[in-house]
């Protein structure tokens, strides 16, 4: 029986904010000379991770089998953990802490990814336990 998962719904919402925010209101610095700094590519990577999280969260909401759903949500949690390390650790950002990529994008993406990972992990554990109790 398919059951609504609030954790997966929360993850979907957060993933949408990651995907949209990384290239708009939470995005990196825009260079006046039209060039792209490494922070731009960090934003693009976050867009990719955000879209992946959206797909996994939707699947986590739609898939009926508890164990498969748990697997999908655990994968989403792993992708979200990867997202925490993208801006600033895996991809360099600008050299000044006051720049938008460091002051806004990095903390926002880390926070959103951490919350997504947590909600995916908790709902994944819940789905796994529920599936285990039925067998």
């Amino acid at each position, binding site marked *: 029986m398919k059951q609504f998962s609030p954790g997966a719904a929360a993850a979907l919402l957060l993933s949408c904010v990651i995907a949209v925010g990384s290239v708009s209101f939470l995005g990196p*610095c825009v*260079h*006046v*000379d039209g*060039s792209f*700094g*490494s*922070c731009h590519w960090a934003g693009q990577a976050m867009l990719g991770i955000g879209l992946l999280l959206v797909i996994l969260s939707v699947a986590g909401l739609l898939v009926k089998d508890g164990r498969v759903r748990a697997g999908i949500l655990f994968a989403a949690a792993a992708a979200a953990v990867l997202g925490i390390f993208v801006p600033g650790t895996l991809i*360099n*950002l*600008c*050299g*000044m*802490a*006051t*720049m938008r990529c*460091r*002051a*806004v994008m990095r*903390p*926002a993406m*880390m*926070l959103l990814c951490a919350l997504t990972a947590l909600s995916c992990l908790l709902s994944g554990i819940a789905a796994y336990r529920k599936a285990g109790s039925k067998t």
Partner: protein
Amino acid sequence: MKRGSLAIKNLLRKPGRTAALVILTALLALSVFGGSVVVGSLRQGLNSLESRLGADIIVVPSSAQSKASFQNMLLQGTIGAFYMDGENLDRVREVEGVETAAPQVFLASLKADCCSVKIQVIGFDPETDFFVRPWIEQSHTRELGDLDVVVGCKVEAEVGEILRIYDERCKVVGRLAPTGTGLDTAVYCNLSTMKTLLAAAEEKGVSHKVSSDESDDQISAIYVKVKDGYDIDQVNSKIQGHTRKCSAVRTKSMLTDVSDSLSAISGTVATLIGAVWLLALVILVVAFVMIANERKREFAVLRLLGTSRSMLGGMVLKESALCSLAGGILGVLTASMLVFPFTTLIETSLGLPYLRPSAGTILGLALASLAATVLVGSLASSWASFRLSRVDPGTVLREGN
């Protein structure tokens, strides 16, 4: 059954009601903890600026638009490059009452290595400086060599890294402790390095209103310490009269401006916190009274089963205290997630010195916010608790029929 476990079971039995109470109390904790951390950081920033400035008077060129431009440079890290005749330093030193006068030269880099961010370079004289040197000595005890630079904590460069400024390879030899001011975004070097950088800038065709040949004779600011027993205002006026095309600014007046802005922000934050608390308190009292009315029959049955009045009152208080504690923890965590990661954003938005208090102070504020939330939550439920404990089981159960 223990009253504690009964209270927890009651809360779990009505998850919607419990969640509403938790969210309401979380709002209280969020506002008081978040607000107090922001105000505390602003106060810490002002203290840091006061202790860092050290000078009684700062002399800047009139072209620096008096203190406003210089103040923005100090507070917000706005790039500033303005120059005046180096002779003014000797003129200031000649003024009666001047104990020490230390020059600084400013330079704005075109861009840093990584991106199109400009960096403020500040050159100082290690022999006379009392402004930057004590601060640098906290992290770098040796003398700064040629092309050695020390970076503010907001410049993302590690010790040993090479920073290219106008294609000159400057070695980072130290990172400074945070001050919460615009000084954190600057790079510091001695006057010899500054001369090299000015020459490099000239080669790049970037005019800084000072040629490399004249760099020894051109300075950007003079920090003045007044001898004990002299009136700072009088010395300030004398300096103003002795120097050419310069403005002498009392640091105290600059700090007063900052202090006034801080008071205004503190007042606004306090008003907002007060409004949130008043509103939430009224809602909590009304909510607990409504809950008390809803649970009259339940309490009447418990009374018939032998539960004493004090036990019933205690149970309601315990329920509200548990809700408030959960809400308080949620509120403090939410405020932490909103305030701490976005420290730089808050600082740049406010345009004031902003330095996070120590971990101990933050922990103290968190515990105080939690205690205040639990206390207010318990107080809000005390009337409802009193009314419920006075329930007459017979009357209530007959009314129900």
